[in-house]
């Protein structure tokens, strides 16, 4: 399965109901879709994919995780 589809699965499994028409440019953060515990679960999932812990102070989370497309790029840049 491609990373993008795996990521969508992970977001849905974290308890988020993606709206119809959700796409690569749809907002995850500013829209509030990724809220509290869903964000926590997604951080852990991303860490599993990149194989290391994230330093959350070292990057701009609201900017770099704002859309599905950006989040895919974020993971691809850090994958071993």
């Amino acid at each position: 399965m491609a990373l993008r589809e795996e990521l969508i699965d992970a977001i849905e499994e974290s308890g988020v109901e993606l709206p119809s028409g959700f796409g690569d440019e749809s907002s995850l953060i500013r829209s509030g879709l990724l809220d509290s515990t869903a964000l926590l679960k997604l951080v852990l999932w991303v860490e599993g994919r990149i194989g290391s812990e994230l330093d959350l102070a070292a990057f701009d989370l609201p900017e770099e995780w704002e859309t599905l497309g950006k989040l895919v790029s974020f993971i691809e840049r850090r994958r071993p």
Partner: protein
Amino acid sequence: MTVEIIPYRPELTPELLQLQTNLWGADIGLNAAYFKWKYLESPYAGEPLIHLARSEGRIVGMRGMFTTLWEAGGGGPQLLPYADDLVVEPEFRNRGVVRRLMEANFEEGAARGFPFCLSLSAGQVTYLSSLAAGWRTVGDFQPVGNFRALPLQVERARVFLDQHVSHRAALLLGRAVKRPAFARLDRAAPASPGPGSPIVLGHETRPEAMADLVARLPWDGRIRHVRDAAYFGWRFRNPLRQYRFLFWVETGGGLRGYLVLHHRLGESSGLQRVNLVDWEGTDDQVRAGLLDAVLRWGRIPRLETWTAGVPESARAHLRDLGFERLSPQSQGRWGHHLLVRRLGHGPMTPWGFGNRDLLNMEDWDLRMLYSMAG
């Protein structure tokens, strides 16, 4: 289910208190006292900066900010809102409610002219959602703890019973060994100075004497909360906490040092945890003497404090007495961080306060006292 975000109004207080049984505690009366103390009785309290989430006439979420007063070298006292008390009912999570509550508070905070807000008590989940809402993390508080061997072994046995044998047996063991957190300290510490011992125990704050000591001590200009008599008079009336004070008394009644301990009321199981929330002295000997006295008289099973911003001499003394860095697992990996967020334009430069950098932990003189965790 649509959710609307509304500003707090006094007539919504009963529903707010009910909602906060999810966070503050089960006792509505205590919650009411806590709300009043924190949002209405603080020396800096104005109109409460609270927003509520309401769905079908029911309050389902809250984010509050209460006002605090900070100072830094080169910058006069500055009121800043402290964000706290975030709670959303489970069925309304992951629907953008947290973000909308935060945004409403940010907008109102900016409209009231606050340049920044801060948080010193975000838990793991709040920490992450705060980063998503534009907060910046300054650093962690470097918590350390001192655990007495026997209570720790008993606690491990209780946890083992609970996980592998019987919840009831664990409860019984917990009840059998549970002692009030300050029982030993109250018995052993003197209430008045004796020959060769200037340290006394107090159950009440001494606002004027403590503020006078802080004013006499040198200050390097790092960012800190204003600790004046008004603050000391209010701060230790938190109805969800129990406090004890050790005072190093000078001849004539003034103070050479003080140390403040707090215990959260209502801890039902586990090691009775006490936090060392503030600690001052005219020199290293006074500070060390106060800490030694707490351990000697109190025999507290679990004593914790923060070391971010603490002088190296005090850190060394804590290490010598057996304080160890608390593991991220016990603290929650992302909890216990200082967070700041810009609200609008004010007298401070973008990330500065006076001549200090808000995003540099070295520029903060932090104490657990400043946090609602303490």
